[in-house]
């Protein structure tokens, strides 16, 4: 019809600088981790007592620590631990938190109250506290760290999924779906999930950043991956006694943690700008 003009095709916005920088930083961490599988300059756990506490050089890009271990190799290997813990933790939270949130949003009443109170209780136990409890009972390990951070991240996913689901459930297209007798399962699959997937992806990125921070804090406290496997947090902790003389020992792992966290935070922000319907509107 001539009088009704068809709106021009979706004008995809260009990727924001936030998104690009975030993606680059995350990619750098991922590449470091992948690289550590096939190559590190030295064996990251092998000590060379003769070469202890050296500064940067051609032989040791980031110098060596107090046992003479190559810091650069440790940083590369640490990326692997960081990503592993992050992936498993976010995976646990995603797989448990999201369905619970959707359930709470679709089944109001008792189901919602129970689920959200459960989330409230979990919220009073931050990842670090859960990890400390795990450490006390089972002893510190990579596994306890991953589990603890994962459990601590569940409420975030449950809340995001629930609020997204509530938004979707209040729309008229859900009314229309119910008015043609679509089952709850089908509504969840066809309408709710595709519409909240953006928010969940953003939450993944944000949770990943939090998981990286928590892992670093745990290994800093000696409750994460046990030695000798290198982790950024413990490298930082071990550097503490040399702050007066070799501050670079703190700077390298510190920067690695900051880059990883910054990368995932920026990625999350960039993705949010992209997915947020409010920002994506006409204005």
């Amino acid at each position, binding site marked *: 019809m001539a009088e009704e003009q068809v709106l021009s095709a979706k004008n995809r916005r260009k990727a924001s600088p936030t998104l690009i920088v975030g993606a680059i930083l995350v990619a750098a961490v991922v590449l470091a981790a992948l690289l550590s599988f096939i190559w590190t300059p030295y064996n990251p756990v092998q000590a060379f007592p003769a070469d202890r506490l050296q500064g940067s050089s051609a032989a040791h890009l980031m110098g060596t620590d107090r046992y003479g271990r190559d810091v650069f190799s440790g940083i590369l290997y640490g990326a692997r631990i960081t990503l592993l813990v992050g992936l498993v933790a976010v995976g646990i939270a995603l797989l448990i938190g999201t369905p619970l949130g959707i359930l709470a949003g679709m089944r109001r009443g008792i189901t919602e109250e129970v689920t959200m109170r459960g989330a409230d209780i979990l919220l009073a136990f931050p990842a670090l506290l859960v990890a400390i409890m795990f450490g006390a009972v089972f002893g510190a390990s990579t596994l306890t760290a991953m589990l603890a951070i994962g459990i601590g991240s569940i409420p975030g996913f449950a809340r995001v999924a629930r609020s997204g689901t509530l938004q979707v459930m209040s729309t008229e297209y859900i009314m229309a779906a119910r008015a043609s007798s679509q089952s709850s399962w089908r509504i969840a699959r066809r309408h709710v999930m595709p519409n909240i997937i953006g928010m969940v992806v953003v939450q993944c990125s944000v949770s990943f950043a939090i998981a990286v921070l928590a892992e670093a*804090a745990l290994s800093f406290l000696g409750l994460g991956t046990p030695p000798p496997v290198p982790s950024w947090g413990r490298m930082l902790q071990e550097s503490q006694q040399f702050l007066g003389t070799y501050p670079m020992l703190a700077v390298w792992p510190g920067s690695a943690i900051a880059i990883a966290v910054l990368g995932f935070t920026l990625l999350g922000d960039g993705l949010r700008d992209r997915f947020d319907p409010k920002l994506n509107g006409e204005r």
Partner: protein
Amino acid sequence: MGIRLLINLVRFVVTYVIATVAVFLFMRAIPGDPAQIALGVNATPELLAKTRAEFGTDRPLLVQYFDWALGLPFGDFGTSYITRQDISPLIIDRVQVSLILVILAMIVALAIAIPFGTYAAVKHRNPSGIVVSGISQIGVAIPNFLAGILLVVVFAVGLGWLPANGWTPPGEDFADFASRVILPVLALASVQGAILTRYVRSAVMEVMSEDYLRTARSKGLGKLESLIKHGLRNASIPVLTVTSVQLAALIIGAVVIERVFVIPGLGSMLLDAVGNRDLLTVQSVVMVLVAITLIINLMVDVLYTVLDPRIRKGA
């Protein structure tokens, strides 16, 4: 208002009780016999039995739970199985140190976040505003223990202005207390301030696009004037939500910072207890931390009703 407060109080109690059950089951039921843990694998059965009777762990779990849980609200945490000392006076001593750190850090963080966040929102198109946002973005990515280490490198090791670690209670020697508290509080507050700056910024940006701000401008109020008179109180509601969540995060953050600065707070106590496998102490300190978090949430909810008249009038 009354009904809302009552509902929240009931929720608080229920959440708290469930949390005690969860912590008790996890810390007491899973690890096994505390007497065995305290005495080691080579203990004789007679000694074990005697120690169990002494600890009271020969009684049914349910009795042990009530014995522990009912003592908590009165500050009775029991006697450590490892150090054989009464836990309560230690916790009360330590909790003060941690609270001083956390409260000071939150005040400093808000003092950073409110002006800078507002500035970044008002000037969000100017380079200066973008720079503030950028700095806060980077601040968020720095773990507080790293911030602590950097502060020590610069101000204690490098410039030698302040002590690198240690603690003096404020009642004993205030000047010494002040010099020792500055760096840990800054370490907590700088990171927290960066996080809050971002939330303040987005809350103020949200408010700036509201219709009532346009109304205020159409009355003849200036940009800043309308923002201060009409915007900030509205923006404070979402910021309050975040602050309560962040306060809980700050309490946990303090655990780590106490380690960095060798401060005898709850965090150090908790970590030492973990190191000693002193499970009853861990269990009790965890419950104290959880209770503080829950109480903060409850108080924030009361604050909401004060701030927002829409909540005050029931549904």
